[in-house]
């Protein structure tokens, strides 16, 4: 992995900044939420305290018995707009939240009540697939037809019985049943022929026939209504009925009304974006004010904040939904408050927005008579959070980007320096064996500079060694000459003493030994002598073709075991230089070829013209040269041969070839033959 990549990875750790920012934003948000919960709870508490001081303005009925739907209690939803009498409840402006009327015979009927300032509204759905119309001449007690009876308890405590029936669906008035007040079951069951029917046009109803039965939507002036109302639906055919009657259920049929004026009272307590609801112990809303609709939301802001929000775990979809159905409120906070304990809760509103709810109990005389529920739109806070977070995120992202860019630039600079140093180190030892002693960037004070200086010291040492090695041959050749001469001259003297046969054989061997030593010394000093010859060489024009022809003729005599194949151009090849040196160059090439050529192998010598230069090639049938050796063959003191023969090899032969070639402005190179057999050495020499 390159340093650049490593540093990039390191730079990426600065991404921890946005992460930390995220965490910070979350902490901040959680603190904000906490404080908001506290403040909303405090508000709720304040309102609850204020309301508990004047319970008469909050609670209309003083009956503390719990709301009992089974007992025929009805909650009268506060209606904000006047519904049209049409047999449908859709225009009530609230969710259908009916009470199922009890029935003994599987006769199903559901009812719901609502009130405006002047009217009480009833809405009933009765499952009665057979329509039994009202006969023209009605005997209230004896005739059987589909009817809905209501009993209204007046201010004076008397019950008045009305019923709705129809000859044909549509708008009609209620029928008042006048007669003795029905006191008990027995009285009702016994026929009362003197009962009279009288229409009551102030009570209006709409009868809508449906596939399942009929809907009845009725409107009763509030002046008719005191505290209780019983309702019963009866089937004309089967005599089945569903509902309550005052006879059966004298303690039931209570109507739970929202408290008049409570809305206005609550409105004085709240701010924009907050809704306050007062509930009684049955979690029924007695009054409410305000709206949680966001004051103003910028759509663009919203969508931009969206993706930041993805990074935050607080998501409204995880929250419990706001449980409020038809005026009856639910949720943890409501239950807690009704049991006397204030509680705040985050919920998901109907439109998916986050809402904060806080409920505080209204304590009257030591018991919780109800609760104040505050709902606040959390969007405002969320928006603040989102803005802060977006700013934080942008800042840290910018910081990260800057850090990455700076690190990348730095890495590029480091990599450049190291790369430059590496290139310099790789090429420090030239192909001619010369060593460059200076490294780039060695003046820098840092570790890379120190590395460069380390390289320089190393190269200086290496150079000393190389120098020493280069001169070692010449020195040895020179220094050993005197002792060798002593040995040889002593042998000369010894031999002149008149030795016997045996003694002479020893001196002969000693002489052979000195001869070999002499050869070794000569080869050791060869390069030095060639270098000296080159210094003193004179250049003259000569015919390369003739020179090669005559030398090869000599090699044929000198190496009878090898066959030489000579390939020459047809006309003379004039070159300028030192023919003696060229002859030495050829000597070395041929010696080399002979050394590697198998017995009876062929050695090809080829001279050809190329653009501007002559090409002298000597190839043999010997083994191929390993690729890794090829570039070093012409270096001084480079020797790969293991001692195969008696001749010493010091890695100077091909070095001499190169010296001579370069002296003539040419080049020397080695390669393997393309046909796969042996090596080919090529020397180029410039034409004149």
């Amino acid at each position, binding site marked *: 992995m390159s340093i650049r990549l490593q540093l990039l990875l390191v730079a990426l750790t600065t991404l921890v900044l946005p992460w930390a920012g995220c965490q910070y934003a979350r902490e901040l948000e959680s603190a904000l939420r906490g404080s908001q919960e506290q403040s909303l709870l405090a508000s709720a508490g304040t309102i609850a305290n204020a309301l508990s001081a004047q319970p008469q303005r909050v609670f209309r009925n003083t009956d503390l018995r719990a709301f009992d739907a089974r007992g025929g209690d009805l909650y009268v939803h506060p209606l904000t707009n006047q519904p049209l009498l049409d047999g449908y409840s859709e225009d009530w402006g609230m969710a259908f939240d009916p009470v199922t009327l009890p029935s003994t015979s599987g006769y199903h009927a559901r009812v719901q009540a609502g009130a405006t300032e002047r009217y009480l509204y009833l809405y009933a759905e009765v499952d009665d697939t057979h329509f039994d119309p009202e006969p023209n001449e009605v005997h209230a007690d004896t005739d059987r037809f589909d009817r809905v009876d209501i009993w209204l308890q007046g201010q004076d405590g008397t019950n008045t019985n009305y019923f709705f029936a129809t000859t044909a669906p549509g708008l009609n008035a209620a029928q008042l049943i006048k007669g003795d007040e029905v006191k008990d079951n027995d009285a009702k069951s016994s026929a009362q022929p003197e009962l009279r029917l009288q229409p009551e046009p102030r009570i209006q109803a709409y009868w809508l026939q449906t596939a399942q039965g009929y809907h009845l939507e009725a409107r009763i002036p509030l002046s008719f209504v005191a505290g209780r109302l019983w309702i019963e639906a009866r089937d004309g055919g089967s005599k089945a009925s569903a509902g309550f009657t005052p006879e059966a259920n004298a303690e039931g049929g209570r109507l739970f009304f929202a408290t008049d004026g409570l809305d206005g009272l609550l409105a004085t307590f709240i701010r924009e974006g907050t809704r306050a609801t007062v509930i009684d112990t049955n979690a029924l809303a007695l009054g409410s004010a305000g709206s949680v609709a966001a004051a103003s939301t910028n759509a663009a802001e919203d969508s931009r904040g969206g993706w930041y929000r993805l990074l935050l775990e607080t998501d409204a979809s995880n929250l419990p939904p706001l449980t409020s159905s038809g005026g009856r409120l639910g949720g943890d906070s409501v239950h807690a408050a009704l049991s006397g304990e204030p509680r705040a809760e985050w919920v998901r509103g109907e439109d998916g927005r986050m809402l904060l709810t806080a409920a505080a109990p209204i304590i009257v005389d030591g018991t919780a008579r109800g609760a104040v529920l505050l709902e606040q739109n959390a969007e405002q806070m969320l928006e603040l959070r989102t803005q802060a977070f977006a700013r934080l995120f942008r800042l840290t992202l910018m910081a990260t980007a800057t850090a990455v860019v700076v690190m990348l630039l730095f890495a590029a600079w480091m990599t450049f320096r190291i790369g430059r140093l590496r290139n310099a180190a790789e090429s420090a030892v030239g192909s001619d064996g010369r060593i460059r002693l200076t490294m780039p960037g060695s003046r820098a004070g840092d570790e890379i500079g120190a590395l460069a200086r380390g390289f320089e010291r190393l190269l200086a040492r290496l150079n000393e060694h190389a120098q020493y090695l280069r001169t070692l041959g010449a020195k040895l050749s020179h220094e050993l000459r*005197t002792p060798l*001469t*002593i040995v040889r001259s002593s042998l000369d003297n010894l031999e002149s003493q008149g030795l016997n046969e045996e003694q002479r054989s020893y001196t002969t061997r000693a002489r052979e030994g000195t001869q070999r030593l002499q050869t070794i010394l000569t080869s050791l000093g060869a390069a030095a002598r060639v270098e000296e010859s080159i210094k003193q060489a004179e250049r003259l024009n000569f015919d390369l073709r003739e020179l090669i022809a005559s030398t090869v003729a000599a090699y044929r005599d000198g190496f009878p075991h090898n066959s030489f194949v000579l390939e020459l151009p047809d006309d003379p090849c004039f070159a300028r230089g030192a023919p003696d040196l060229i002859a030495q160059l050829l000597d070395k090439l041929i010696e080399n070829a002979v050394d590697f050529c198998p017995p009876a192998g062929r050695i090809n010598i080829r001279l050809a013209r190329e653009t501007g230069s002559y090409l002298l090639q000597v190839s043999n049938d010997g083994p191929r040269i390993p690729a890794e050796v090829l570039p070093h063959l012409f270096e001084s003191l480079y020797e790969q041969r293991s001692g195969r023969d008696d001749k010493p090899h010091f890695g100077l032969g091909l070095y001499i070839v190169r010296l001579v070639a370069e002296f003539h402005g040419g080049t020397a190179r080695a390669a393997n033959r393309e046909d796969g057999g042996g090596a080919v050495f090529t020397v180029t020499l410039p034409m004149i």
Partner: protein
Amino acid sequence: MKKNIAVVEDEPALRDNYAAALARHGYAVKSYGNRHTAMQAFRLHLPDLAIIDISLEDEAEGGFDLCRDLRAASAELPIIFLTARDSELDAVSGLRLGADDFLTKDVSLPHLAARVAALFRRIDALKRPDNAAEIIRRGALIIDGDKMQTTWNAVPVTLSLTEFWIVHALARNPGHVKNRQQLMDAANVVLDDNTITSHIKRVRRKFQQVDPAFDSIQTVYGMGYRWVE
């Protein structure tokens, strides 16, 4: 009367070997280890021949100084450099200082003796009046084998002993290629190829000083040299 030979050589073993060999050949040999003792002796009495090494003890070029001093003392005194230093430069310097021959220590003792004998013969021949000496004539070239003298177009060409023998060997059989070994044998000297080449070069130059058109010694690459007329 025995000829006096002074051997100036700082290596005792070698010095003694040379002295012993030359004494065996009938010369009176005095050997010296450094320039000072040699010069002191030479001031009293000049030898008939001085064989000098170039580097003498702590003087790397002491032999050259000695040669200069000797040449100043006597113009005729034959001087031979016998040295381990075989570079072209040394040889040229030595011969320029007036040495008669320049031998490397590769030379064998019998060869050395032969060279010494030849040198004395040349000196003796020069002192004697002309007699029926061995004369080789090749066109403009005349070689007096007795006096070891060479002339080109009747102008003397001063050759060192080695050079003389090389020219002699080439000119005796014109057209025949003499390889390096043959030339070395002829010159009674062991030289490497380079030295032969430089000797040939020097011979050519000496002839060319007399006659710029001289081109009688021809190189046969890979084989040797031949004399062409």
